[in-house]
């Protein structure tokens, strides 16, 4: 489904952020990418959602080279991917409902679908009672759950979560990982970066370990080893 083919990324003048990275992700897999800060985890995800271009190599999504997609068609491609960030990236002037609805509106979905699916998605992340709250009225864990609801509401093929628990306390972390697991069980591919050892060890799913821009381990049912 996703194939990184010998991908390298050099930022201006510095050492490579990632170097010669090759791996595949199969449909419905749950893959964790672990490594220290600066190991290249986030760069990997940025390349996948075409926020950045590789210096060398190709990234394929369902056999399409994503960096050859014309700029005008990028929004359509990005709608196939639900993204979750460490800093939530919610629209601060929109309520929880509107934040989730925005992703559907951008996708051209009808008002009826929005009225039906948005509460469902927020219900799924246990925020059915916070529909009209603005981000500043929510806790960190709640914000992240709104972001998850936004990521899944369009039923994407794949969910990308970049350090989703980085800003959360242990209980919120546990909840977020539970939700991601549930989403994966329902058939959506999940790629998550993290450096939370507890999360990885509890998941018992595939773990890709990165160090200094290179993949140093790829275990089918891995532990956090660094």
């Amino acid at each position: 489904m996703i194939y990184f083919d010998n991908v390298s990324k050099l930022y201006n003048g510095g050492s490579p952020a990632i170097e010669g990275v090759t791996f595949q992700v199969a449909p419905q897999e749950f893959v964790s990418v672990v490594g220290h800060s600066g190991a290249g985890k986030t760069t990997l995800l940025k390349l996948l959602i075409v926020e950045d271009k590789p210096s060398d190599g190709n990234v394929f999504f369902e056999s399409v080279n994503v960096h050859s997609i014309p700029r005008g068609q990028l929004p359509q491609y990005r709608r196939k991917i639900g993204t979750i960030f460490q800093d939530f990236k919610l629209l601060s002037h929109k309520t929880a409902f509107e934040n989730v609805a925005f992703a559907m509106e951008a996708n051209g979905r009808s008002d009826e679908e929005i009225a039906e699916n948005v509460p469902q998605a927020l219900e799924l992340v246990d925020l059915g009672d916070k529909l009209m709250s603005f981000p500043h009225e929510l806790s960190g864990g709640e914000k992240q759950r709104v972001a998850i609801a936004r990521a899944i509401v369009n039923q994407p093929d794949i969910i990308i979560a970049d350090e989703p628990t980085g800003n959360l306390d242990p209980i919120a972390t546990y909840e977020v990982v539970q939700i991601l697991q549930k989403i994966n069980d329902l058939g959506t591919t999940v790629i998550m970066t993290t450096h939370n050892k507890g999360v990885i060890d509890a998941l018992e799913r595939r773990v890709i370990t990165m160090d200094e821009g290179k993949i140093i381990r790829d275990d089918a049912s891995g532990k956090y080893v660094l």
Partner: protein
Amino acid sequence: MWTGFKRIARSGFVGFWRNAYVSLAAIFVMTVTLFVFTSVLLLGQLLDASLTQIRDKVDINVYLVPTAQEEDILHLQTALESLPDVREVAYTSREEALAAFEEKHQDDELTIQALEELGDNPLGASLAVRAKETSQYESIDTFLRERQQEEDPENALIDRVNFFENKSAIDKLTSIIDAVEQSSYIAMLILIAATVLITFNTIRLAIYTTREEISIMRLVGAGNMFIRGPFILQGVMYGLIAGVLALLIMYPIVLWLGPGTQSFFQFSIFTYYITHFGSLFGIIVGVGIVLGAVSSAFAIARYLKV
């Protein structure tokens, strides 16, 4: 299509309302700039009116001998009117000249008495010639002098032409009018350029505060038009509200200035404001809307490159 438009409109209105401080700041700056723009427009009208007035006061008078026959005078009038530089020729007959003289000196008994002593009307008829441009008086004067030279001295028609008495005044006025017109155009251009730049930068700042949100919108897969639309709508709203405010603020000012301008320029700025309100509204609000929309579109283009 309709759904998209509806969503853009709703998102624009909601964004305008929830970013109330930013909206207020943008409207405030645009109101000030549009107010300046309106002032420039009205000042231009005032200047135009006063220049037209001054031009109308300039003429050359052809004084005719008292014995001149009306037939000959009318003949000369027709000849003058056929000149391309001449705008109009006003004929004042001997009787009208006398009536005007009497009225002018009605409080001056000595002069009236002297006039009565004379018994006969001592005044000649005259032709007041107005040129299309003040610079054209010289050629009209040349025409009249040639005509005067050709006349039979025994039976002259033209007594004198007062061009040379007025010449220096006319020359001075011509150069003043030219200078004022040119400098007012330059001032207007500078002010308009400043208005455009200030508005553009204000809106750019307003959008700068939301650049993070724009990148989020792109990352969740929103298309360019879907992101840009609400901001352009907000720019249009800034322009619309600022235009209306600028015109409202202008009202008491022109009301206050009306009598003063009427007595000084014989042109009431208040009357002009009221009678031309429709077109003023169209221009000011239109300029505001276009400025707001174009500035937004330009400002946001920067952040759509993620």
